[in-house]
């Protein structure tokens, strides 16, 4: 089977499907690599000459067309560096590199792709939570009987906003890692991909959103907690009132019973 949007080999031939989830044509194959909760289709093309002087332009154009064909809202990012080229989009990527550099460049690309996918997921999650903010924000001020049916969903969103914060904290060291010096090819490619996709800025933006969510859902959780405590107290008060009333009734009955019987001298 031949995929319509498959990558081209050096002769412009499309890649064939081998039925095992990987497409193979000669040396070219499409790997499906899990990155966070997404899958990245990856093509690795060894460059003919390590100095970047090969006539790889046709190959590069074909790889770019293949990556672009996946139609995500992010246009492909192309990073050429000293004879190696990495083309990346969130669901497809291609590496054109000299043989000796392939393993390290692949690792750097996947490392970046994992960061990007994780950040993308967190951006989505922050977006979803922010979408409910107007609806939930009043509960940060006041929570009472009228809101009782929303308690479960508020608790769930509180948990999600805490999770979001934790995931961001987990991701930050990978996004903000210091540049490597003396620079290696793989490290430079990773840094340039991070720069081009503005990973650090995006992380900061999600952190700002998480700050807002934090404040609102933290207050909501407090209000729900306060309400639960208040309800418990109310119940207790009623129990005490009922008990006191019962005691009063018993006392009354005893008094009345005492009135009805004539004392014997």
């Amino acid at each position, binding site marked *: 089977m031949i995929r319509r949007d498959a990558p081209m080999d050096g002769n412009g031939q499309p890649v064939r499907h081998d039925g095992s989830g990987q497409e193979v044509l000669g040396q070219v194959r499409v790997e499906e690599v899990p990155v966070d909760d997404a899958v990245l289709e990856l093509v690795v093309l060894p460059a003919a000459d390590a100095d*970047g*002087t090969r006539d790889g332009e046709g190959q590069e154009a074909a790889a770019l067309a293949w990556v672009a064909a996946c139609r995500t809202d992010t246009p492909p990012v192309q990073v050429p560096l*000293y*004879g190696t080229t990495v083309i990346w989009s969130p669901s497809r990527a291609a590496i054109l590199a000299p043989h000796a550099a392939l393993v390290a460049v692949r690792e750097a690309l996947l490392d970046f792709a994992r960061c990007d996918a994780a950040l993308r997921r967190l951006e989505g999650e922050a977006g979803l939570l922010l979408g409910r903010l107007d609806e939930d924000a009043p509960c940060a001020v006041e929570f009472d009987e009228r809101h009782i049916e929303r308690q479960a969903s508020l608790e769930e969103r509180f948990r999600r906003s805490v999770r979001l914060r934790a995931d961001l904290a987990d991701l930050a060291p990978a996004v903000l890692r*210091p*540049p490597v*010096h003396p*620079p290696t*090819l793989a490290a*430079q490619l990773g840094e340039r991909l991070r720069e081009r996709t503005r990973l650090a800025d995006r992380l900061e933006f999600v952190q700002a959103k998480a700050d807002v969510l934090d404040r609102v859902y933290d207050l909501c959780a407090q209000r729900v907690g306060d309400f639960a405590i208040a309800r418990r107290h109310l119940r207790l008060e009623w129990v005490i009132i009922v008990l006191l009333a019962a005691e009063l009734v018993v006392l009354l009955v005893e008094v009345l019973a005492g009135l009805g019987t004539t004392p014997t001298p």
Partner: protein
Amino acid sequence: MHPRRIAIVGGGPGGLFTAWLLERMASRRIELTIYEARDRVGGKVLTPSFDSAPVRYEAGAAEFYDYSAVDEDPLRHAVAMLGLPTQPLGGSAVLLDDTVVGTADDVHDRLGPAAHAALLAFDERAKAAQSPRRFYASGFDAVADGSSRRFDAVMDAVHPPAARRYLETMLKSDLATEPCRTSTEYGLQNYLMNDPAYMGLYCISGGNEQLVQALAARVAASVRLQEPVMAIGRTASGSLWVESRRGGQTLVEAFDTVIVALPMAHLPLVRFVGGRLEAALAAHCAHHAHPAHYLRVTILFDRPFWRRRVRDAFFMLDRFGGCCLYDESARDPDATHGVLGWLIAGTAALESCARSDDELVALALDSLPASLGDGRAAFREGRVHRWPGAVSALPGGERLAPVDQRHRPEPIDHPDLFLVGDYLFDSTLNGVLDSASHVAGWVAARLAEGPGGAA
């Protein structure tokens, strides 16, 4: 109370920064006069255009150093306050014999494992000698240790020769001199500035000259263009006099304070009158005169033909004893043309100064490795800017003196005469700003303490 009259000699970045800061810090009315020898302010920060096309290039300072990853960066702060947009610059490629050595992996693969090991050992040594924080503070501390040990001793220890050549080519244009003419500390700093943990690089989008233009637009000082200062002395009444020349006439004016913001190459050309002052300035110049040289050849091409192989904002070339090639067109995202700027440094720059512009442009074109592409076929126009003795090979002098001493050469009889210069710190714009703010703060404090001051 009449305003205090202050003269600033030199309308380069040093003079302009001093005026800008002083106007903001002064707690009483001041009247500032800036003397500038040329018909423009800005000194060695200039962004001219080619004749054949309205395409800009940097003819002097090309990159600004960003220390904000380590600590506060006053230059970054000033650029932001002036509302100037910036963009990062980067590049790590060294072209040796037409081979692109872009990364440490390339050093290993193309120069061999021994060269790679030597590079890592050199890197280790440099980082062990100076942490980012120590580097950041280095211009301020007066050092008593052997900072004047020559850098060539360090370079001589680098083996094999391929590693040494790689490092020398990489460092030459930042040093602007030969390793034997500078200190170990300064040499290693020029290596470490390639490490983003120590500093980043940026430029002002649309041309670095906007920095000095923005400063000039903001200062209220009276700027006297084409009026070089010839001599400075003290009047009988105790104030300082400044003698200048305008249109063939000699003018003399009295000031309460004089700040001389001249580079080391120009300072000895001013006559300081009065036994003590003259001797102090002579000693100052003898301590700080370690001239280093630059020469820029900038060529406009029809297209950036080299980008197939190198896409960095700058890269190093093993010609002219090691030079930096700036891809000036990379600074303009809409550029259709290509501009390459050769920054030739040290003895090669000094020797080349005597050659004609045409010769230098031809030499620059010849120096392009064949695999980059045919420069002659794409050639449109070439420009040359000569900067002999324009920077310091040993900033701070043989031994770094205390900061106050560097800025006030004769404190006893002339406590109101100050010096500002990049050569007092690290021979960069960051250095000249440090120097300017030190003097501006000092003069502002004296104003506040003096008669009619706020204190």
